[in-house]
């Protein structure tokens, strides 16, 4: 079952053009939308039970329902995709930008929005070019601008390029950034749906979420809801990366096990090596290990119940040769580098974690550092529970604790050995 990638797979060379898009039924959902009216479009999205694909998995229809009545209101598409392991939105932007644009027009129409923004991460010039081109084409064809298709509905779309800051993926930071400010997350409440861009009601949705809207309107929300498990409806893009034979994006129906995903879809581990661990939903997610998780279902709720998350659908696979201390360091370093710096625990704590790891990697670790790593993590995410408690404004800080907790939970002996010998266990094994 393919929804998002059907066109691009069938039409390798031109799925991004308006000609191909129109020739394959594109913008017909829009016509239907204008026929059935905005309330009906909203109703279809609600009925679809689609959950946001940006990481938080919040039901899109419910979020739309929170949009405050004040106008102007805005729709902002989150194309800041920067969570390590995640590269699905890039494919949607490059290969089927009109699908997104049509979704944007439909969603804006449903929400009563006349100006939408697509915030694309700065390191994505090519996707931005494709999207801008699609937007230009849509204007030229009357799918954007004034009185779209004679419906009386007006919509402008601004494509905005970020400046290189992962935190701008967090929706309120993104809005600050779009306002020309530092990308610092805002205190919530108020939520963007009430006070968002320019303090006006704003819906922020992920690229993938909105790219599904044309299909949902064409085929009906019920049809979408009937795909896959009840609480993980529809298809979703999974990004496979790391030590895996067939990395890439896969549009799947949720519900298969991790074994299916890693070994069938992903083709298993290169060189027939052993699977050591994987991250089920982007680098922010606590790790899974084969002994405990390989045969559990990859659905939003199952993963959550087992103490991690599907997040943005990024699966990062680590084989037996992985130096888990170095891998955890790499992830911690990412969060320390990307902390916006507002909250004391995140600004200071993530950097402290990184520096302790640096010592461990340099062979200057002390046994006390193991407890210190845990305790500093605890100061950012008290109790180190799942879902994480936070001493911070946004979940970025706590995200940095996921790898720490994971290696201490599953590989503590390796960490201790690392302190003692200063040499990665994986290397020791290779030498020995």
């Amino acid at each position, binding site marked *: 079952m393919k929804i998002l990638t059907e066109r691009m797979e069938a039409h390798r060379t031109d799925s991004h053009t308006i000609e191909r898009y129109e020739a394959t039924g594109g913008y017909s959902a829009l016509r239907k939308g204008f026929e059935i009216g905005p309330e009906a479009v909203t109703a279809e999205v609600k009925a679809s039970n689609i959950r946001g694909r940006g990481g938080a998995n919040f039901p899109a229809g419910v979020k739309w329902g929170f949009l405050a009545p004040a106008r102007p209101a805005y729709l902002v598409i989150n194309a800041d995709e920067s969570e390590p392991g995640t590269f699905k939105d890039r494919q949607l932007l490059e290969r089927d930008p009109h699908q997104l644009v049509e979704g944007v027009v439909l969603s804006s129409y449903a929400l009563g929005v006349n100006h939408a923004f697509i915030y694309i991460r700065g390191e994505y010039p090519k996707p931005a070019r494709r999207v801008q081109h699609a937007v230009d084409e849509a204007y030229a064809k009357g799918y954007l601008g004034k009185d779209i298709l004679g419906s009386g509905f007006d919509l402008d779309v601004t494509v905005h390029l970020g400046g290189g800051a992962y935190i701008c993926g967090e929706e309120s930071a993104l809005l600050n950034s779009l306002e020309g400010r530092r990308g610092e997350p805002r*205190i919530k409440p108020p939520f963007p749906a009430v006070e968002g861009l320019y303090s006006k009601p704003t819906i922020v949705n992920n690229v993938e979420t909105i790219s599904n809207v044309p299909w949902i309107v064409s085929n009906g929300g019920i049809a979408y809801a009937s795909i896959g498990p009840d609480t993980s409806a529809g298809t979703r893009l999974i990004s496979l990366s790391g030590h895996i034979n067939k990395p890439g994006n896969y549009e799947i129906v949720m519900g298969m096990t991790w074994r299916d995903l890693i070994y069938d879809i992903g083709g298993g581990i290169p060189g027939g090596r052993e699977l050591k661990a994987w991250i089920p939903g982007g680098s922010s997610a606590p790790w899974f290990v084969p002994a405990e998780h390989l045969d559990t279902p990859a659905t939003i709720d199952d993963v959550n119940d087992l103490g991690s998350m599907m997040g943005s659908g990024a699966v990062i696979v680590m084989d037996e040769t992985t130096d888990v201390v170095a891998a955890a360091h790499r992830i911690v370093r990412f969060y320390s580098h990307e902390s916006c710096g507002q909250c*004391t625990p995140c600004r200071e704590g993530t950097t402290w974690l990184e520096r302790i790891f640096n010592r461990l990697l340099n062979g200057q670790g002390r046994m006390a550092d193991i407890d210190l790593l845990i305790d500093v993590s605890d*100061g950012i995410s*008290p109790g180190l529970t799942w879902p994480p408690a936070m001493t911070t*404004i946004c979940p970025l800080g706590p995200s940095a604790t996921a790898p720490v907790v994971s290696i201490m939970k599953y590989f503590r002996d390796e960490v201790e050995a690392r302190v003692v010998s200063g040499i990665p266990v994986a290397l020791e094994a290779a030498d020995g």
Partner: protein
Amino acid sequence: MADLVTITVDGVAMQGKAGEVLIKVAEDNGNFIPRFCWHPRMKPVGMCRMCLVEVVGPRGRMLVPSCTTTINEGMEVDTQSAVVKKAQEGVLEYLLINHPLDCPVCDKGGECPLQDHTVAYGPGESRFVEEKRHFEKPIPISELVLLDRERCILCARCTRFSDEISGDPLIEFKDRGNAVQVITFPGEPFSSYFSGNTVQICPVGALTAKPYRFKARPWDLEAVESVSMVDSIGSKVSVQSSQNEVVRIDGIDNDATNHGWLSDKDRFVFESIHSADRITTPLIKEEGQFREATWGEALDLVAERLTSFPGAQVAGLGGANSTNEEAYTFGKFLRTIVVTPHIDAQLDDGLDPQFLVGVTPRAAIPDLETAKTILLWAADLKEEYPVLYLRVRRAAAELGANLIVVHPRATGLDDVATHKVRYRPGTGPEVLRELTGDDADYTEIREALAAGPVVGIVGRTGLGEDPRLAEAVAAFVRDFSEGKIMPLARRGNVVGALDMGLAPTLLPGRVSESAAHDVLESEWGPLPEGLGRNATSILEGLRDGELRALIMLGTDPVRDHAEPELAAAGLDGAEFVVAMDQFITDSVAAADVVFPVAGFAEVEGTVTNIEGRVQKVNRLVPSPGQTRATWSVLDDLARRMDGNLGATAAAAIAKEITGVAPAYHGVTWDALDWGDGREGLLLPLAEGVQHLEYIPVDGQLASVDARYGLHLGRVLYDDGVRVRMSPSLAALRPEGAVFLNAAALDALGLAPGSPAVVEGASGRVELPVAVDNSLGDGTVYVPANLESTRSLGAAVAVTVSPGGDA
């Protein structure tokens, strides 16, 4: 009144107003939650995470910042749980990671929330073994402020203050994550009129003020509450001294006036108190030179000379920088000992005295919190009334009031104004008629004014502006729904001085001379008959020989009167001039005898601000040398002139005022020090009466027709004596210039920087020209009262021509 909400904090039930944040409600009820970034006058940002508490909810306990969490009915809060303690310890440990711990050499040491919180809530020791973050040690970020980034805990109070409160975001965060620092932009120093506030609210010693740096340790400081007398807003301050020297002034939070904020002039003017140029002994002029004299000698001489003139040939100027008690004694001395009606506290640079003290309905500063529309047709508040500027800025930017600014040039509030009207000085009456009429240009403004409550802030936009225009504007505003008027005049206690009768048309207690003459005679004894002269007429009288002697109390007509030549001629023409002052100003230099008197922080008394709010100023340090309190000098003088003022102590004078001055009935020092009056008493009180209820009228002024209209506007750091005597502020005085728009420069064939001559009926200057494109056609702006501009009097109609050899 907002609804009350009941919550439970650590088992104790307490109430707060709906919409208030937890940290405030807890604090108001005696439960102090530690904090760094939260400040009650700024929007919460929840950044430092020091104030985390647990809220017990249906889904269990949740750790939340108490500074961003608004209270809900029935909310249950735990500020003491193990989780909270751990979080607090964590935050402190994180903050100390990069803190230099140089407390022994830090100005903040001893009054530092970081230090205090670490003792109270912190971890025992740091487990951080890595290298700390390093920055260049204190760097000057303006003429007044130094920044030590190593000490900074990134609470963003300073950056938020300058963005949210003062509207000049010159200090900002830079970089991201662990590299974040607070800093200015190259070539754009933190030269804000309000920079000192950031020093005051910085929770650590990262921002320090040059005038205070290393002056004292907090535990050596003595402090009193007082009121800033730099302008007439009545900002509440804490005056602090070390070893009998005032070393610091901080703002004190209060709802009524300054919200705790001060201008840098309010804050750093204390330097003048201990200036080496203070007069510390009486001076007698002999052969054109002052010589030091004893008090007895000087008093005898003055008594003898003053007695030698008929009372009506003597005049008194000044008192607007004195306390009410001093002003009252000065008035009583003039009216009953000298027996003269020629008294003026203003120098024709303010407003009609009856209008100023008696206008009704009068707006109080807190009315700005509820005003829907504010019409500001007065001085550039940022330059003349900086703290009021902050309040109006808040009303417009934060509270959503419509702000209409009418002024000859761009003002500090233009960026938050909903409507701006610019006009050529002299044409104000025309603009007002268009506004009140049905001129289509002003339809939107009229619509805005239709939304009440309306506050009209009126005063002279510049020194040349006819004061009657302000009254005409007031008459216009008064007609709008809930229209109230705030008339502005500048000197620290000008309203108090007028309330004490220091104007020809007024007697003590907000009563008119004519109405209260007989009543007051029953208290004071015989009073001079007939209305006296105002300042201009006094100076003319002295110049023309109709008046022969002058007594000045803390006033400098040569610099401050609109016609400097007239002022000089008046002093020159007087046969005898006595001055009571702290410095030898240009005017004091013309005196025959000078009495050194005590000033701010050296005397106790009351002052009355622009709203008519009476507050207490207090004594903290002894006055230098042989200086004496003004009232005691006058009392001594009176005795030598066979009279008796009964001025035995400031407190005794205050008691007398309460009895004699109708609007001051009920104003007691007890109430001000300990009672309801701690935030000031807004007159008249229930016990008081305001006999004078002045209804402003539009006198249908004619516009002044001239090719160029002069806008002679004040700047905050001008050549006023207290700025001159405060080295830190004196250094900030701007250069004088003649400002015109670019088109006018072209028309005159002038390039920026080349000399231009401005000449009017009261004087002339030649100065470099500069471009100010906010000026309309025919408007020329010259900053008032700078060394280089003072020769230009305040005429509106002027000529402008190329200077130099051109």
